[in-house]
């Protein structure tokens, strides 16, 4: 029952929810810096190699650190609304610009690996659900256990060992060979080659997860009454599987794709570090080494935004796949 009023109310509620979540991330961000021992001025003074108490006091006033917590928080929120997430203490550049430069490669890595993991994983799950005792079915079970148990960064290192020592055909570090004058197609090919190993590493972990998830979900669905009805009215196996069963079995996959996006980004931090992929993850790693808190918090904020956007997107997909919840 697609009722425009209800639908609009749902959208408004959703939008408020998103704004609240973003606000909460910002408040958390700010509180973390506030609660942590030491403050930016101390760090600055440390880098300068000491300063007089007068200068320190002056710096505190300059940075607004003498104001009460709530005032500082309001100033911070006001700045963020204007797109100002502070200045990186290492690069001495606005955090927003730094993060935006790195967001593209991360999105490329994460979406390509998640997409291939979901498509391949669902197919594996669907095939193995139809023959529960087949070798493929056992393979899915073993694969999903192994995928859960292997540390993603270690898997990446093992792939590097394999492809740099045993079969040196793929580049193992960076995003391109650094020569962008060769024309757009060759450049894309170059990036594609560099993408293979990091994307494969990340995809393997989630392939394991999604194949098991869709296998379980498909088994549930195949036992349902409406599938038996579809069979009884004489539909072919292919029609039953792909038109009736898969559409329902895929719902948990969609849900988890949204819920897990934060974890996938976390995995990307490790994979990017291993393969020197120039995304948010390597930026986060470098910022840790340099103790660059503003940059790290900026990355956290932008990643949370990506996850929230992804959640809204899966919500929409969910509504498209499952017509029953259109009005909800």
């Amino acid at each position: 029952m697609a009722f425009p009023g209800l639908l609009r109310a749902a959208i408004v509620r959703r939008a408020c929810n998103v704004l609240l979540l973003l606000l909460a991330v910002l408040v958390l961000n700010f509180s973390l810096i506030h609660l942590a021992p030491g403050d930016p001025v101390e760090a600055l003074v440390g880098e300068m190699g000491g300063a007089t108490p007068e200068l320190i006091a002056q710096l505190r006033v300059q940075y607004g650190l003498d104001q009460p917590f709530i005032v500082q928080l309001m100033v911070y929120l006001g700045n963020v609304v204007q797109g100002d997430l502070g200045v990186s203490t290492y690069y001495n550049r606005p955090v927003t610009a730094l993060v935006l430069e790195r967001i593209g490669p991360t999105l490329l890595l994460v979406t390509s690996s998640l997409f291939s993991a979901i498509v391949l994983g669902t197919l594996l799950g669907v095939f193995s659900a139809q023959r529960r005792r087949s070798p493929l079915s056992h393979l899915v079970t073993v694969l999903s256990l192994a995928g859960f148990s292997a540390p993603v960064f270690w898997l990446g290192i093992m792939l590097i060992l394999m492809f740099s020592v045993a079969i040196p055909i793929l580049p193992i570090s960076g995003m391109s060979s650094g020569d962008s004058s060769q024309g757009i197609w060759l450049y894309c090919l170059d990036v594609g080659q560099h993408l293979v190993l990091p994307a494969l590493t990340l995809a393997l972990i989630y392939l394991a997860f999604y194949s098991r998830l869709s296998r379980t979900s498909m088994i549930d669905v195949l036992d349902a009454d409406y599938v038996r009805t579809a069979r009884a009215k004489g539909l072919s196996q292919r029609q039953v599987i792909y038109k009736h069963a898969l559409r329902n079995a895929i719902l948990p996959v969609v849900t988890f794709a949204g819920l897990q996006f934060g974890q996938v980004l976390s995995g990307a931090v490790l994979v990017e570090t291993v393969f020197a992929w120039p995304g948010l993850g390597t930026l986060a790693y470098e910022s840790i080494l340099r103790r660059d808190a503003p940059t790290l918090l900026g990355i956290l904020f932008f990643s949370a935004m990506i996850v929230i956007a992804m959640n809204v997107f899966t919500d929409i997909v969910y509504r498209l796949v499952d017509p029953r919840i259109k009005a909800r």
Partner: protein
Amino acid sequence: MNSKAAPDQTSPPLIAEPTSPTRQAWLMFRGNLSAMAGLVILLLILFVAILGPSLYPVSPTEMVWMPLTPPGASEYWLGTDYIGRDILAGLINGGRVTIAIGLAAASITFVIGVTIGALAGFYGGWVDNLLMRVTEFFQVLPNLLFAMIVVMLFSASLTNVAIAIGIVSWTATARLTRAEFMRIREMEYVKAERAIGARNRRLIWSVILPNAAPPLVVVSALSTGSAILFEAGLSFLGLSDPNAMSWGRMIGDNRPYILDSWWGVTFPGVAIFLTVLAICLVGDGLNDAFNPKLRQR
């Protein structure tokens, strides 16, 4: 598990004796080959982690032999790393740290997750609404990034690492607990307890919680596995106590030298993999043992 409760004879008793649910679960578990394999591996790893350092008293942090000695080429079986530290000693001592942090973090996860899930599921209404908003918020935060920031800002002590992992990992436990509480809350025996005047606190902790235990045990086993992976990730990035050897740190330390020594990164990874795999197998086995109906899958 309570291995003492296991009977010696393998043939079923002739008269159907009443068996406790725990015992039934154990019998089920014992018949599960992969679960038993997981349990044996896990016990072995725990044995090595607890007693290993006294049985194999080589320092994991000191240079003992030529750097980058391959496995089998010296008295240090698994070889040495880039500054001549014994890999085997690193594995034995690092296992202690990794497993201890995994257990500590999983306990924190359990306490936070069960408390929030129990309150949300039991009270419902605005309590549920509020707590689920909080859960949603923690789900949106990329957990590793958040833990990295917490550890960096509040110093990388082992306690802080465990706390950081605990506070970013509890959402799954909370959701499961909430679902279980919402289900069990409506059961006859809970209503009966309430009718004879049991207070909410008793209903939550003494009536519902024990009945929600089986799935929570399974999810706790799995979250111990995740916490170990998480700790490995953090210490791989260098976010761990610099004085404590751990598996993730060994991989991180040896990573720049992989082209000269595959063993420095491979063995610690195998150790992490085996530990988490064993935990998973035990968790899966427990799941099957608690829900025999689901076994056909």
